[in-house]
C-alpha cells in the first residue's frame, strides 16, 4: 500500500491533467492572459478539482489516520510569512512566462520533450538552490 496509492494517485492525476487540457501551456496562457481572446477553462479545472478534494477531505476529516498510513502529514507552518508570499510571486512570474507549472512541466516529457528538457532541470536547480540557502541560513 505505501507504494500502490502514490502510483495510482499519480496516474489518475496525469490522466485528469491531460484530459483537462492544462498540459497545453498555450491553453494555460490563454487563461492567464484575458486580453484579446480569453479561455476560462483553467478556472473550471481548478473549481472541479477543489470541489472533489474538499468533499473527500470533509469525509475523512474526523478520522484519526488515513486509510493505509499511520498519520496525516499536515504542513507545520500556519503563518502567512514573507517567504510564502515572495515564493508565490516568483512562481507566478515563471508560470506566466512559459505557461508551465510543475505538473504540466512533467507531462511535457510526453508532449513537448524539448521544452521539458529545458524547463524541468531548471525547476530542480532552482529548488535545490533555495534549499541550500535555507540550510546555510539555519547553520
Amino acid at each position, binding site marked *: 500500500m*505505501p507504494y500502490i496509492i*502514490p*502510483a495510482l494517485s*499519480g*496516474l*489518475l*492525476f*496525469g490522466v*485528469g*491533467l*491531460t*484530459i*483537462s487540457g*492544462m*498540459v497545453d501551456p498555450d491553453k494555460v496562457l490563454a487563461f*492567464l492572459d484575458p486580453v484579446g*481572446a480569453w*479561455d*476560462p477553462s483553467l478556472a473550471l*479545472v*481548478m*473549481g*472541479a478539482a*477543489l*470541489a*472533489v478534494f*474538499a468533499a473527500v*477531505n470533509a*469525509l475523512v476529516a474526523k478520522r484519526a489516520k488515513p486509510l493505509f498510513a499511520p*498519520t496525516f502529514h499536515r*504542513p507545520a507552518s*500556519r503563518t*502567512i510569512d514573507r*517567504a510564502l*508570499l515572495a*515564493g*508565490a510571486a*516568483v512562481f507566478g*512570474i*515563471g508560470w*506566466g*512566462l*512559459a505557461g508551465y*507549472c*510543475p*505538473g504540466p512541466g*512533467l*507531462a511535457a*516529457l*510526453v*508532449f513537448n520533450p524539448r521544452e521539458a528538457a*529545458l*524547463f524541468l532541470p*531548471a*525547476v*530542480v*536547480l*532552482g*529548488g*535545490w538552490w533555495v534549499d541550500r540557502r535555507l540550510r546555510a541560513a539555519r547553520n
Partner: protein
Amino acid sequence: MFEVSGFTPVSATIGGGLIGLAAALLWAGSGRIAGISGHLHGLFQRDVPDRARRALFLVGLIGGAALVAAFNPDIVAQRTGVSTLLLISAGLLVGVGTRLGSGCTSGHGVCGIGRGSARSVAATLVFFCAGVATAIFTRHLLTG
C-alpha cells in the same frame, strides 16, 4: 477586445474532477498532500527518506499523461519557437518560487485551499495575480 475563445467546459470539468479525485486518494489513503513541486523538490533534498514514494507519484503522473496521449495523440500541439532562454528562466523562477513558497498549483491551489488553509489561499491569490500580470506584460506590452 475581450471575448471568450477555445473554452472546453466539459473536458475541463471532467479532467479537474479526476485531478481532485487523485489528490483525494493520496490524502485519504496515504495522508500526503498531492503537491507536484513538493514531491519533485523532495527527490533532490538532503535527508529525505522516502524517495521511492515521491518518484512513484511523479512517474505515475507522466504515465497517466502518456496513457491519454496513446489514445489521443494530437491532444497537445507541438509548440515551437519558445526560446531556450525563456524556458530555462521560467523553470528557475518556478523552481525557486515553489520551494520558497512551499507549493504550486496542486499543493496550494487544490489541496491547501481544499483543506481550508489560509496560507494556501494567500499563496494561490499571489501566484495567480503574478501569472496574469506576467502573461499580459510579455504577450502584449513587450511585443507591442
